[in-house]
């Protein structure tokens, strides 16, 4: 039998009489379904290695404080210092350390924090849900707000609404996130006192589940609000630009000629297509979002993963750093993967 380029395409076309050129033009051969996950697996493996290496490339090490004369933790006894090094396995060559790390990882053991003296997995299990809650809330709110405002502004390009939104979002975008956070803290927590100054929940109190949820939300409001604003500015500009370029498109004109209503045209025709760059750039921006989250958590002293990373870096807490980095990179990769999948659903033209 003749093997044709894109033979499945020819099958799909069924009985219709088309010229040979038509059949060949139709669809490029799809890549096998496993290529995408495989690419992600390779990425993850490379990241595991980098996670191990990067903390060790920073100057200093977890017990460097023990060596520094004058600090409170300075250890006089050289032998004891060496014993500590040996205890944490830091005197071994890098290769051996990596083997130990990788073996532990396979067994699900992320090691024990040098600073907190608790298993890293426990630390992460405690902090991760808070960070996810913060990021998730901010992402949903921010994207929703940015996309809707962007669509509204782009659809009415040059009108008063558009100009107002554009000026507002661009001004917001020019504030660094920590500055925005500080302002929010000053205004809402210090002056108005309607939100807490720091933390992710009220410590040392036992509350009913509902009251506990309210407490968490109360603590979440400011950091999530600031983070959502930060996300929204980017999405707004993208969505608005996408919408504006859709305004002159053939299919929108076609839709208008079909006598469709304004809402259908705005959302189904212009909006859905303008959303494509938003979705694709979201995938690229996930890592930036993680960075923003760390910054916001630090500003608000929110007890999330970001704070943990921040502290772990300060104390060169290798196991904690490795664990946190691993989780964060996995988050980024997963988010990318999801965005990739979402994009495929949004845009049928993407086949590779």
């Amino acid at each position, binding site marked *: *039998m*003749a*093997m*044709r*380029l894109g033979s499945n395409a020819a099958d*799909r*076309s*069924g*009985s*219709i009489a*088309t*010229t*040979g*050129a*038509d059949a060949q*033009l*139709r*669809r490029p051969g799809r890549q096998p379904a496993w290529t995408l996950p495989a690419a992600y697996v390779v990425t993850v493996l490379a990241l595991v290695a980098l996670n191990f290496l990067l903390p060790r490339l920073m100057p200093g090490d977890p017990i460097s404080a023990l060596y520094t004369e004058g600090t409170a933790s300075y250890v006089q006894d050289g032998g004891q210092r060496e014993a500590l090094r040996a205890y944490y396995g830091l005197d071994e060559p890098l290769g051996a350390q990596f083997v130990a790390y990788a073996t532990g990882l396979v067994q699900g053991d992320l090691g024990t924090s040098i600073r907190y003296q608790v298993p890293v997995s426990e630390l992460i299990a405690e902090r991760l849900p808070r960070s996810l809650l913060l990021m998730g809330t901010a992402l949903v709110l921010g994207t929703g707000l940015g996309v809707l405002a962007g669509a509204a502004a782009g659809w009415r390009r040059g009108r008063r609404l558009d100009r107002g939104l554009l000026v507002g979002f661009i001004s917001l975008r020019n504030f660094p996130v920590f500055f925005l956070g500080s302002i929010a803290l000053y205004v809402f927590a210090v002056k108005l006192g309607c939100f807490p100054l720091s933390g992710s929940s009220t410590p040392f109190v036992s509350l009913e589940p509902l009251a506990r949820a309210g407490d968490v939300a109360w603590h979440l409001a400011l950091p999530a609000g600031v983070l959502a604003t930060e996300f929204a500015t980017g999405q707004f500009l993208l969505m608005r630009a996408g919408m504006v370029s859709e305004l002159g498109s*053939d*299919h929108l*004109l*076609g*839709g*208008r*000629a*079909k*006598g*469709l*209503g304004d809402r*259908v045209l705005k959302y*189904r*025709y212009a909006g*859905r*297509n303008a959303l*494509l760059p938003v979705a694709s750039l979201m995938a690229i921006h996930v890592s930036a979002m993680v960075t923003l989250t760390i910054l916001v958590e630090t500003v608000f002293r929110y007890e999330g993963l970001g704070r943990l990373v921040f502290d772990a870096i300060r104390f060169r807490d290798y196991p904690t750093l490795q664990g946190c980095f691993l989780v964060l990179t996995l988050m980024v990769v997963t988010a990318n993967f999801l965005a990739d999948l979402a994009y495929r659903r*949004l*845009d*049928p*033209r993407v086949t590779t």
Partner: protein
Amino acid sequence: MSALLEVDELAVRFDGEVDALRGVSFALERGESLAVVGESGAGKSTLALCLAGLIQPPAARGSVRLGGQELLGASEDTLRSLRWETVALALQGSPFNPVVTLGNQVAEPLRERRGTSSREARKRADELAGEVLLDPAVLERHPHELSGGERRRATLAMALALDPDLLVLDEPTGGLDPVTGSELVERIGELAAARDFGLIVISHELAGAAALAQRSVVLYAGEAMEAGDTTRVIGDPAHPYTWALVNAYPVMSTTKDLRPIRGLPPDPRAVPPGCPFHPRCPQAEDVCHEQRVSLEPSRARLVACHFGGLKTLLDARGVGKTFGRGRRRGRLKALEAVSFALRQGEAVGVVGPSGSGKSTLARILTGHLATDTGEVTLQGRPLVRSWGRSARAERVRIQLVMQDPWDALSPRLTVEELVREPLDLGAGDGDGDGDGTDDRAATVAAALESVGLPASGQFLGARSHELSGGQLQRVALARAVIVEPELLVADEPTSMLDASEQARLMVALRERQTELGLGLVLISHDIALVRKATDRIVVLDAGRVVEEGRSERVSSAPRSLTARRLIEAAPELRHTDESGDREPIATGGET
């Protein structure tokens, strides 16, 4: 009951400076079909959008009435109710939402406008696909997964969804291969007959438009240039623009080399005053850039031309010439009642065997020889045969390129002097408006370059014996066109040249003819050559016109014996690579 569609003085100006349409009027009833043809940028697509009220004041002015309802300035609700129900547009390109399957888009008007259930609408979409010869399975796909032909058919299916009264097709066959294109055209014709909708086909594709529409409107720079029955407008164009457009369009029988319309389409920001076509028109006069034109009845159609269409440049009626005196013996009837006409910018070939009177005709047409009977007029005025100084301005309007350039051009003059001589002569009788010597040198250089000759010092100083026949013949051509004549008569201009030089001369000749908008009479016994350069052929034999017709017809289906003989005797090369012993080109793939 008002007409289905009435367009009255529709003008569209974008951003206050871009003139897309400049006053177009026409009307259409149900069951009628109209083709709107023209070059890119003539305002065709703008017109389509106006018909669905997609361009509104202040950009649009005039009136578009659909079933009596004025579209310009109508409320958005009114327009929405008319769109697709009354007027459906099959826009060019891909008017599909890229992220929605075709089936959903074809069914969309039914769901959104009629409230049909999704399932019903989808079923109807499948039926519609069948009506335009599209496999319903295609509807499962997204727009990017379709071939151009499928996309055009899907566009058509979508346009038919609400059974509109008026269907507007913008470039229905644009970008399609001819097989798919003609299938689609045939299908549209059948649908129009079956459903009795008004049909407007907008296209630069003359053949497709002509096949679909009973009437045609030719648009140029946003104005209608010619309107009427398609058979007349496309089949026998009257307006210089339509004529040039049809001539630029290749059909299978075309023998003449393709000829672009000289000049460029106007910038819609600065449409020329008066008749917009005048900068490109071979017959433009002062009135053309002073007064605007409007469609007026002429030659059984409407033509927007100050002269009612193409002027007759040269008209020879009953021309007879006898040489010698006395009775039967010494007398030679060279020409007998020869009549033919030449329109502005047209190229006519005069072919015939030796002794048929061709050269005599050439000499009469150029005013070198008087007729015995009959009359030759150039633009309605009899030819001037006086050699007097006062007649010179008249005489330069017809120029002759002769068979033997060595004979025709003085061997004592240099190339520069040869080409410049007509200018110098012209300057003597008051025609010269103070042409400086430098200007003339520049004109000479330009004339030489226009026929593909160098205008360098060495070449300018050469004399005829230093040049090849082809070069010299092109010098003769430069000398003929430098005075900007209206008619060029070329008598066997290539008979002394080898094939390559002949081709080069013909290219230069045709190019000059197009660019200057000249009438051309090309006299030759070589019908193979003549048919490449002319629109019509006149066959002479023994001093009589034995056949006359379009070049492709005369050279492929001659009616006269003389023409048939000339064709049989025409040179032919046997190409051995067409014997068919090679494998046909593989299609699709190998096992």
